[in-house]
C-alpha cells in the first residue's frame, strides 16, 4: 500500500505523484468495487448458462411430468394429462417401491462402505510398500480407472459366465466347493455380490488415488512427532491423520453415495437388460416405469423422489461445502 515513489525522486515530485497516484487509486477502487461486485457473476455466468440452458427446461419438464399422466399415447401427442399427486400416491402405495428403496439403501451402504474402507486401506498400503511397487500399483489402478463402464461390465460378465467363465473354473480347481456351472445370478445375494465386487473394483482407483494424495500432504513433522511420543501406528492414524483427512472423506463419501444410489448400467448389462424384480434398484425401477412400461409420468415422479432422498442423505456434505467458504 505504500510502495509509491521510485527511488531517488525529489520530495515534491514524490508528494505530487503521491497525490496523483492516490486519486488514481481511489478511482480504481471505485471501479474495482463495482467490478468487484460484478466479477463473480460474470465469472459464474458461462458455467451457469451452460447448465441452465441445457438442464433448465428438461428439469422443469421432468417435474411437470411427475404430476401428469404421460404414457405412450400422451407422448405421441406431446400432451400430458394433469393428475396432481396421483403418481406420487401410486408410488408410495406400491409395496414394490418400498422394497426397491430399502434394497437400494442397503446396496448403497454396502458399496460405499467397502469402497471407502478398501480404497483408504490401499492408499495406506501405498505408503508402506517399496517404491517400485508403489509405481506399479498406481499404474495398475490407473489402468482399472480407464476402462469404460460398459467394457468393465462385459469383462466381469464374461468372467462369471455360467459355462465358460474363469471364476467358476478357478473356484472349482481351488476346491472351494462345487462351482461347475455355478449360476451366480440364480440367487440375488450372490448376484449382488458379483455386482458389488464389480462396482467396488471400479470405484477403488478414484478413492485410493485421492486419499493417497491427501495423505501425502499430511505434514511429516506431525506424524514424526506423534511417533516419537510413542504412539502406535493405528493411534497416529486415528488421531493425527484422520482429522486432517476428514474434509476429503466427507466429500468422497457423499460423492460415492450419490453415484452408488444411482447405479444402473452395471446391473442392467450384467443381467442382459432383463433384470428380474429382485434385482431392481431405484435407477432400474425408474427406468422400468419410464421406458419399459412407457409411463413417463410415473418415472418422473420416481426420479424426483430419488433426488429428494439423495439430498437428505448428503446434507452433511452440503453444509460442509457451504461452511468451507465461510472461513475465508
Amino acid at each position: 500500500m505504500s510502495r509509491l515513489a521510485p527511488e531517488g525522486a525529489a520530495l515534491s515530485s514524490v508528494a505530487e505523484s503521491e497525490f496523483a497516484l492516490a486519486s488514481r487509486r481511489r478511482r480504481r477502487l471505485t471501479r474495482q468495487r463495482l467490478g468487484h461486485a460484478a466479477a463473480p457473476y460474470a465469472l459464474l455466468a458461462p458455467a451457469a448458462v451452460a447448465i441452465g440452458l441445457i438442464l433448465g427446461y428438461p428439469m422443469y419438464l421432468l417435474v411437470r411430468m411427475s404430476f401428469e399422466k404421460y404414457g405412450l399415447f400422451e407422448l405421441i401427442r406431446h400432451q400430458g394429462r394433469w393428475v396432481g399427486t396421483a403418481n406420487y400416491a401410486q408410488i408410495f402405495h406400491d409395496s414394490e417401491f418400498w422394497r426397491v428403496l430399502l434394497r437400494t439403501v442397503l446396496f448403497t451402504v454396502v458399496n460405499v462402505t467397502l469402497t471407502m474402507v478398501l480404497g483408504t486401506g490401499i492408499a495406506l498400503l501405498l505408503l508402506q510398500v517399496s517404491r517400485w511397487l508403489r509405481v506399479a500399483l498406481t499404474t495398475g489402478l490407473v489402468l482399472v480407472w480407464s476402462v469404460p463402464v460398459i467394457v468393465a461390465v462385459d469383462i466381469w460378465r464374461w468372467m462369471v459366465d455360467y459355462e465358460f467363465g474363469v471364476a467358476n473354473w478357478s473356484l472349482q480347481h481351488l476346491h472351494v466347493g462345487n462351482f461347475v456351472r455355478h449360476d451366480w445370478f440364480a440367487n440375488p445375494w450372490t448376484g449382488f455380490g458379483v455386482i458389488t465386487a464389480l462396482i467396488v473394483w471400479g470405484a477403488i482407483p478414484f478413492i485410493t488415488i485421492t486419499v493417497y494424495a491427501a495423505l501425502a500432504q499430511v505434514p511429516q513433522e506431525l506424524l514424526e512427532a506423534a511417533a516419537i511420543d510413542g504412539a502406535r501406528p493405528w493411534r497416529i492414524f486415528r488421531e493425527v491423520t484422520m482429522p486432517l483427512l476428514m474434509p476429503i472423506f466427507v466429500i468422497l463419501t457423499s460423492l460415492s453415495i450419490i453415484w452408488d444410489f444411482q447405479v444402473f448400467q452395471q446391473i442392467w448389462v450384467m443381467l442382459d437388460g432383463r433384470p428380474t424384480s429382485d434385482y431392481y434398484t431405484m435407477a432400474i425401477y425408474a427406468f422400468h416405469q419410464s421406458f419399459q412400461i412407457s409411463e413417463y409420468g410415473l418415472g418422473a415422479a420416481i426420479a424426483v423422489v430419488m433426488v429428494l432422498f439423495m439430498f437428505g442423505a448428503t446434507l452433511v456434505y452440503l453444509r460442509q461445502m457451504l461452511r468451507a467458504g465461510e472461513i475465508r
Partner: protein
Amino acid sequence: MKVRFLVAAVLAAMLAVAATTASGGTSKAQAGKIVVWLQNDAQNGWPEAVALANRNFKAQHPDVDVDVQYQTWGNHLQKFDAGLAGGDAPDVIELGNTEMTKYMAAGAFKTLTQSAFPNNKTWLQGLKNSAQYNGKLYGVPYYAGARAVIYRKDQYKGAGIKSTPKSLAQFVADGKKLMKKYGKDSGYSAVYFPGKYWYYAMSFVYDYGGKIAIRSGGKWKGTLNSPKALAALNQVASIAKSMSRASKTTDEANPQQALVFAKGKVGSFVGNGWEWPYALDAKVGNPALDPVVGAYPMPSHIPGKFMPTFLGGSDLAVPVTTKNQSLAVDWIKAFTSTASESEIAKAGNIANTTKLLAFNASNPKLAPFARAAKFSWFVPTSPNWANVENANVLQNMLVKIFTGRASVKAAATSASSQITRILNTGA
C-alpha cells in the same frame, strides 16, 4: 475489465458454435432423404436384401437418398420413444412382432393399405395378425423365425435312437436314453433348456390346449394356472430337471446355445433356422460337426402332430411423425419384394409369404423350420403385452420353477395374477 472481456469471449464462442449448427438446418422433412431403422441382424445377416431394396428404390426415386440406420435390440425402443416425443422419428422402422401392439394402440403408426404391398394375399397369417389393430393395418410383415429341434445324429445313434421322435412321449423317452448313455459327464444335456427360454416353454402350454391369457367380457385373464397349462408346465419342469444342465437363470442367447451345442456336450436344443449354421461357424463354432447335425420339428403330445412353435419375427411400420409417407411405403415395397425376401430366406429365416415356404422346403437345412412354421402360437394381442415382457413375468416364473424356489402351481398362479393385472392396466 479483463474479466468481462474474457467472459464475453467465451459466451461469443458458445453462441458461435450454436449458430453454426443451427444454421446447418436439420429438417428431415426435406424430400431428399428417408431414414430407415432396421435391427442390426440385417446388417450382418442379409445385407444383400438391403442393398437390393436400396437399388430398386433408387431406380424408382433417383433423387432420394436412403439412410439405413441399424439399431440394437436393447435400446431401440428408448430411441424410438425419444424420437416420437421430439417429433422426428424415422420414416420406416422395424419392430419385433410382440412390440407392435403397444405402439399401434397408442397411435404411433400410419395406417397402410394392404393391397399396395407385394405378396399381400399370401402373407404369413401369424405375422399379419401382429400388424393389425382394430381392423386396420399398421405394419408390413418383414420376416419370421420358427424353432425346431436341432440335434446330434451321431449321439442319437450312439444312444440307440433309431429315428427322430414323432410324439412328445417318445421325445422324452429318447432324452432319457441320451442321458443314460452320455449323462455321466456332469456337463452333458440331452435337451439344452435355459431357464428363461419362455418361447420353448410356452409352446408346451399351447400344445396341451392352454393359453397364456384369454379375453372374456372385455377383460384379460391370465390362465397359466389352468389345469391344461399346469400339466404342460409340469412336463416342462420334468424335462428341464432331468435332461438339461443349462443355466437356470439365463436365456438362450447368453451364452448362445448354438455355440454351447458346438462344444459337444449337448444332444439337442430347440433353436431358430440360423442357429444350425451358426453352430458350424468357422470362427466361433465347430465346422467339423457338419455331417452329424440335423433338425426336426418338435413333436406334439398328440402323436403324429407338431408342437406349435412361437412365430417370432419383425414387422415394418411407418411412424406417424413422418413427412415422407409415400416414399416410406415405396421403400417397404422394395424391401418386401419377392426378390428381397428370397435373400432374407436364404439367410435362414422364414420369408413373410407362404409362396417362399417352398423355397425353404427345398433346402434341407431350412426345411424342418418351414414345416414347423405351419403350426404356430402367438402372444395375447393386448397393447399391454409388451409390459408383460418387460416385467419378465414368464421368465421369472420359469426361473422359480427350475430353481425349485416355488412349486409349479404357485409360480403359475403368481404369474397369472401378474399377467391379469398388467394386461388390464389403464385406458
